[in-house]
């Protein structure tokens, strides 16, 4: 009995090893480097936009919201033109994590499902990714705020 199960686990391990070798290796280093440079570049563009607003008399904090608006506008425009999908293809999370990528995650499915109508196609698909992000973001902010309020009394 013991030898049999031993035998099986050996076979299983062998199979696992084989499956591991057959599996296509993700080019991790390349992905990471591309994510760094593309994500860094997009952040740099955002910093440039922030600098522009700060030249016009805003503080860094006041500029955050308009910078987000501009970056989302850029992301939506580039997605519409079909260019941003390439940024995501090469940059991976470097393209997806910045707010431009958030805009892409809204616009791309909305465009794709336009044939399903303006309400259940465009209207609904805008929120395939934005929906979960907003839901859990708002929930997290509520919980964190509540804990901070209970602990410090102020938040």
């Amino acid at each position, binding site marked *: 009995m013991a030898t049999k199960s031993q035998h099986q686990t050996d076979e299983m391990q062998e199979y696992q090893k084989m499956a591991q070798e057959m599996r296509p290796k993700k080019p*991790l280093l390349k992905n990471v480097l591309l*994510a*760094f*440079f593309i*994500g*860094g570049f*997009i*952040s*740099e563009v*955002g*910093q440039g936009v*922030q600098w522009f607003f700060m030249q016009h008399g805003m503080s*860094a904090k006041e500029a*955050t*919201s*308009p*910078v*987000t*608006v501009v*970056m*989302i*506008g850029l992301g*939506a*425009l580039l997605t*519409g*033109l*079909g260019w941003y999908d390439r940024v995501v293809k090469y940059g*991976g*999370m*470097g393209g*997806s*994590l*910045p*707010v431009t*990528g*958030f805009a892409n995650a*809204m*616009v791309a499915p*909305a*465009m*794709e499902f*336009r044939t399903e109508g*303006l309400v259940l196609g465009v*209207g609904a698909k*805008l929120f*395939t*990714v*934005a929906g979960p*992000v*907003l839901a*859990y*973001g708002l929930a*997290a*902010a*509520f919980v*964190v*705020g509540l804990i*901070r*309020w209970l602990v410090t009394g102020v*938040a």
Partner: protein
Amino acid sequence: MFFWAFVIGGLLCVIAQLTLDLFPLTPAHVLVLFVVIGAVLGGVGLYGKLVSFAGAGATVPLTGFGYTLVTGVGEAVKTKGVLGLLTGGLTAAAGGIKAAVLFGLAASLVFKPKV
């Protein structure tokens, strides 16, 4: 500021890329995770420090969205009391969210997908 914006913005994307490649998650899972991480780090006061020296490098990645939500809650609780827990997040993020919905709607109506 321009140097750190690039480095921190890039590094946050590297962490996200590693999360995506090393764990069985989809990009949507990673985005949700990063918004929550941003809210938690914002709540304990760490993310604010990152924002003050990396600027857009910290606010442009989606973690900055979580940070915006939680700082909004904090400020609203200070001025309005407990009700701020409900109103603060969306008030602070209103510009970004409304821009995303409007631009997103406009772009998906104006442009045709290329296939």
